[in-house]
């Protein structure tokens, strides 16, 4: 399994750089992944999204959908696209240490 070094932390990742073990996630790792994804700094608005996603993930074992984020009042879909340009579902999940959105094949 590939490893990736972020500052002082080494984490297990898949070929596309998604964490394969959520337990290894830290805020430092999140900031480093965000930089790689072209988000220079994580603002409180980003953190609100990340924290909501992680809460849902821990409670349900599922990465929440864009619809759920929108409906929960955390962030509108338009804002989400502004915060995580070019595929927010994928980018936010990656930064939050969760698996990428996927289908069955």
């Amino acid at each position, binding site marked *: 399994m590939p490893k990736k070094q972020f500052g002082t932390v080494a984490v297990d990742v898949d070929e596309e750089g998604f964490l394969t073990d959520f337990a290894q996630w830290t805020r430092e790792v999140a900031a480093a992944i965000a930089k790689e994804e072209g988000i220079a700094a994580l603002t409180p608005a980003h953190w609100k999204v990340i924290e909501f996603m992680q809460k849902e993930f821990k409670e349900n074992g599922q990465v929440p959908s864009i619809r759920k984020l929108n409906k929960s009042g955390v962030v509108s879909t338009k804002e989400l696209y502004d915060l995580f340009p070019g595929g*927010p579902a994928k980018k936010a999940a990656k930064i939050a240490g969760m698996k990428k*959105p996927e289908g069955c094949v």
Partner: protein
Amino acid sequence: MKRIVILGAGTGGTVMANLLRQRLDPAFWAITVVDRDTNHYYQPGFLFIPFGMYTPKQIVKDRGKLLSKQVEFVVAEIEGVDAAKSEVRVAGGEALPYDILVVATGTDIVPSETPGLLDGWRDTIFDFYTKDGSAALARKLETFKGGTLAIHIVEMPIKCPVAPLEFTFLSDSYFTRRKLRDAVDIVYVTPLPGAFTKPVAAAALGALLEERKIRVVPDFGTERVDAAARKVIGYDGREVPYDLLVTIPTNMGAKVIESSGLGDELRFIPTDTKTLRSKAHENIFVIGDATNLPSSKAGSVVHFQAEILAENVQRAIEGKPLEEKFDGHANCFVETGRGKAILIDFNYEVEPLPGRFPFPVIGPMSLLKPSRINHWGKLAFRWIYWNMMLKGRPIPFVPNQMSMAGKRRPAGAQQTKPAR
């Protein structure tokens, strides 16, 4: 007399009624099934109707005739579930009190969730997830002479998540057969990172798309549709022009789930992933598309859940602990066009892998690889559905829990740690 009420007489409701009837003594337990109408559709058949491979008449039977004679079938609109009182309200009838409720109300397409989608509905915009939609699309395809055909998924999850891919491959074959393929640009628009997102499947099958000259537009979050200008517009500003849009609109559970306060943001019911009991109510169980489970919304999944759920309903009645047995198993034939199909067999944790099924080496089905025998298997499944699956009979050699027998994990393919 105690009573089990089952909401919905589709795949899940029918098989649960028949399985529970076999298990529970009719002298002590009444089983009542409620559905709003009497037409039971073989839903995998909707895929074939647009291409003239099936007619609508071939895929419908009377719901009542598929249920055991010792099951009461009520045809009425379900008006509400009062979980606190353990009671179902139906239109024009007395309330139905229940000891155990099994919810099998499925999922449906909701095009009104996407602004503009209904503007061109059944003019240049079609679905194939309904009887009327697939029949209308068959007529449209007959007169389609060329242009951009966009196959489009609004958002996940959807029922039968491979169906849009199958439709794409069958379209390629259909227009090739009609000698129009060069005039038709086929584009696949998905909110996911690709048409194939699982690494092993992507490596095995990704080349099919290129070979068939199918363009993929990934990571596409649909904001709205401009039907007059014939384009789909994404939240990120990207636009996909089309001449014919075959869309899979947002999938949601039944309205009554929402109005009864049982559902999540898509009206799906939070359900225990392994026992299939509702998370909120001890005497409510859920099967199939109506659940919020991360398993696929597919008939095979219902079949694998059914036996486990029947056992758990019986255990709940007898006051025994429930079995945590459902593993997310799905088994699906996926049409790849040109008279072939692949077979995929997977669960919550194991992605579709190559190999042979159900027997190692001899198969006869091949996993994750197009073959004619897989296509014949898909066509044969209609008979199995009506005659075995709905009656709750086991399908020979296909266990409810996924088996690794015959499967190969390619070198370098890794297994992601489960969420919990």
